[in-house]
């Protein structure tokens, strides 16, 4: 499985996700610069990492979503290629129209960094095949604008089409009580219509080793690493 990680000015978790991909796939992901206009040949997965691209100025992910490389990402997604946006990456995906909705300021108005439990949605996608449906996993969150908002129709579609990838919850699985930022329906991550684009606010790439807090984040990368061939 060939992956490519895009770095925008201000991205800062590209190293974290490159490490996670390297450990799970055994291959070194390619590094792409925001001004590149093409993805490497044979790329299966494009990753938009966490960070503060363009300082989060104007709106989180707004300027990055207009970067030259995003046309190539859109084309890749249109062909069914896999796209993973984590945190700022999720914000860039919604700003670029690859996913619906908006990420707004956390309801508590403060940046939050802590361990966070999630309930895994469907386990039949390229991203979650190594998990079980409904599994409760412990990953991390670190964001100030993770409050997922969308209009009622969009929410109905997402729920109706089973496109909510992860929901915030407590260790015991209580989603409402476990919601750290006010996201509608406790949504922590969503899929595109054809399930090939995933955007999520939490950081699975930081929970891949017991030494630094746990290994529940590995499942996402292991799911991806079991893919064969190009999209």
């Amino acid at each position, binding site marked *: 499985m060939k992956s490519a990680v895009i770095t925008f000015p201000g991205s800062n978790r590209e190293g974290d996700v490159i490490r996670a991909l390297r450990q799970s796939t055994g291959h070194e992901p390619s590094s792409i610069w925001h001004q590149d206009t093409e993805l490497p040949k044979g790329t299966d997965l494009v990753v938009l990492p966490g960070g503060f691209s363009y300082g989060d100025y104007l709106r989180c992910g707004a300027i990055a979503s207009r970067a030259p490389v995003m046309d190539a990402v859109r084309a890749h997604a249109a062909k069914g290629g896999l796209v993973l946006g984590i945190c700022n990456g999720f914000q860039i995906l919604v700003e670029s129209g690859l996913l619906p909705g908006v990420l707004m300021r956390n309801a508590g108005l403060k*940046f939050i960094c802590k361990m966070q439990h999630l309930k895994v949605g469907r386990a039949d996608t390229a991203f979650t095949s190594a998990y079980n449906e409904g599994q409760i996993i412990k990953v991390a969150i670190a964001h100030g604008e993770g409050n997922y908002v969308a209009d009622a129709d969009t929410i109905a579609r997402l729920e109706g089409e089973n496109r909510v990838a992860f929901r915030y919850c407590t260790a015991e699985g209580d989603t409402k009580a476990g919601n750290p930022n006010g996201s509608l329906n406790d949504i922590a991550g969503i899929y595109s219509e054809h399930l090939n684009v995933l955007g999520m606010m939490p950081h699975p790439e930081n929970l891949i080793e017991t030494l630094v807090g746990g290994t529940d984040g590995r499942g996402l990368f292991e799911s991806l690493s079991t893919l064969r061939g190009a999209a």
Partner: protein
Amino acid sequence: MKNTIAMTPELVAQHGLKPDEYQRILKLIGREPTLTELGIFSAMWNEHCSYKSSRLHLRGLPTKAPWVIQGPGENAGVIDIGDGLACVFKMESHNHPSYIEPYQGATTGVGGILRDVFTMGARPIATLNALRFGSPDHPKTRHLVSGVVAGIGGYGNSFGVPTVGGQMGFHTRYDGNILVNAMAVGIAKSDEIFYAKATGVGNPIVYLGSKTGRDGIHGATMASAAFDDAADEKRPTVQVGDPFAEKLLLEACLELMQTGSVIAIQDMGAAGLTSSAVEMGAKGDLGIELDLDKIPCREEGMTAYEMMLSESQERMLMVLDPAKEKQAEAIFVKWGLDFAIVGKTTDTLRFVVKHKGEVVADLPIKELGDEAPLYDRPYVETPKRPVLDAKKIPSPVSNREALLKLIGSPDLASKRWVWEQYDHLILGNTVQQPGGDSAVVRVGEGPRGLALTSDVTPRYCEADPFEGGKQAVAEAYRNIIAVGGTPKAITDNLNFGNPERPEYMGQLVYCIRGLGEACEELDFPVVSGNVSLYNETNGRGILPTPTIGGVGVIDDVTKSMTLAFKAEDEIIVLLGETTGWLGSSSWLAEIAGREDGAPPPVDLLMEKLIGELVLGLIKDGLVTAVHDLSDGGLAVGVAEMAMSGGIGATIAALPFGLPSHAELFGEDQARYVVTVKDKAALDELSRRVGAIVATGEALVLMTVIGKTGGDALTLPGEMPISLSELHNAHENWLPSYMAGEL
């Protein structure tokens, strides 16, 4: 305003220069200075840049060890951590600006210290911060806490470095002068460290980073008196940090350094272009010529004076290899940064500044630093306080009640509200989060790690500056040992009152002496530091606060230790001597409402022997939890271990023959609490203690004090305190206080 404006006593005073300092200038240059030159002297000779009140005393600090690559004098200190890697670190204060504008003051403090580290070629991998606020009852405190914490997070999170530790305390003596001390730690290859010293005559001096504005220029009268109709825009502005610009600067600088084109590099911090240019030249025994017409400015009509004194953030100055100019330019363009060739090195040893075709300053470059005033200010030693007899200080409440009150008190309460606003997980190397004895971060893919801590007990320093200075270093030492680290070096951020008052100067002098003695005995040298003086309001100074940032190396970070109880039925052992020391203790302040008595003395030999013992126990896998004791003594230490591990404990009646509150809350130094799994481990521990005692060096004591287990903490003779009751007392104070509920 004309560069050749007449010098008047008022003008000189407005620049913070005393009459005799001005005479020094006249003598040095043989004429009156131009306005720009006056500005340059006022910047170079102010306390912050010249250390004129402290330099004499700082000279006595130990700064060397086989693992020290660079001691004080550069942008940051550098130590060898093995495997061809070096750790670059420093702590700096941004106190006064944070009081005025807490968010931006804190933000620019973090930005400044990060630059000091990466200017040496090290990628920052962690930051810590030590914060002191006024009394919680003071009307400004909440606003300051909120702003400072948001500012630190706002910068660090965006820049992309984890904020992994620190300290936060409250005391009425900081009501009018808060302290914001920021520490940054970076990693570089030990043979790829970059210094500020310029070399080569005729080499281009390159400016990189954000444009120059009027940020932080002092002497408002100067700038605003100059141009009438645009006076509003000319007024000096609060420095605003731009973490995004700094991130770009970081990546560009590190890439640049890989190309071999950087001969010398210095970040522009306090006194901006002035101090960075002068230091680069002076260190390399070269002259510098600057052409201000080339400085990228973001405001119109900036004067030479303004450009030289601007403290606009996120700017670097470097000397580049002219052969590699194109390569360098490509990197600047890639990262979208402003750059300009703004001058060159010369062989004249003069600092020459030109603007609009005129020479506006021409000064001897080495003397600007070398001839800065050096003061031996009068000082008086703090009178010794009496040692308090615990038997004469009865406890007004039960020990159970005292413990709950202490762990919920402002200084000891959980600071989770603070550190959950900091990204402490980015880079995926945080092995131990905030809340433990030290932060522990893995270096790269390991196995090596660093133990990082920030410590000082200001009330001890107030009571006895010498013992307090020793204690700050000793506590940093213990905190590093407690997580399994070998203490290597410290950075010191000395925050004191007005040095022109002998009693405050005495605090500075004696704290430095105490620091020095501890550093010497513990092989724990000072490699960098910062001094912040004049922290006073209406003649009342802050508590003397020599913050110590300690760094230790952990050979195998998977074997680092935490303070949490790990399992039920483990044996709890207290190492070290307990004399029930209540003088200047947290218990005395919080429970008895007093702030008197001599502080606990520090026996450096004991610290060293017990420290080495504990480190050996950790390395050999003989202990399962380790916590050093400090504020709140034994009871608070054990409570912290229980809360962290979610396992209770029963403490047996203690055998010291002292009043129970003194045994439980006394703050004797050189003590650790450890847990061992079984009798075999306990026997080995005893054997090792016995071996030290047998050498006759010191009487190291060990006492079995109880067992882990259950879901409550039971102190001798008290009703159990459930873990949830402990947890609530510990976690609730700060969030409730900040929400205005208290």
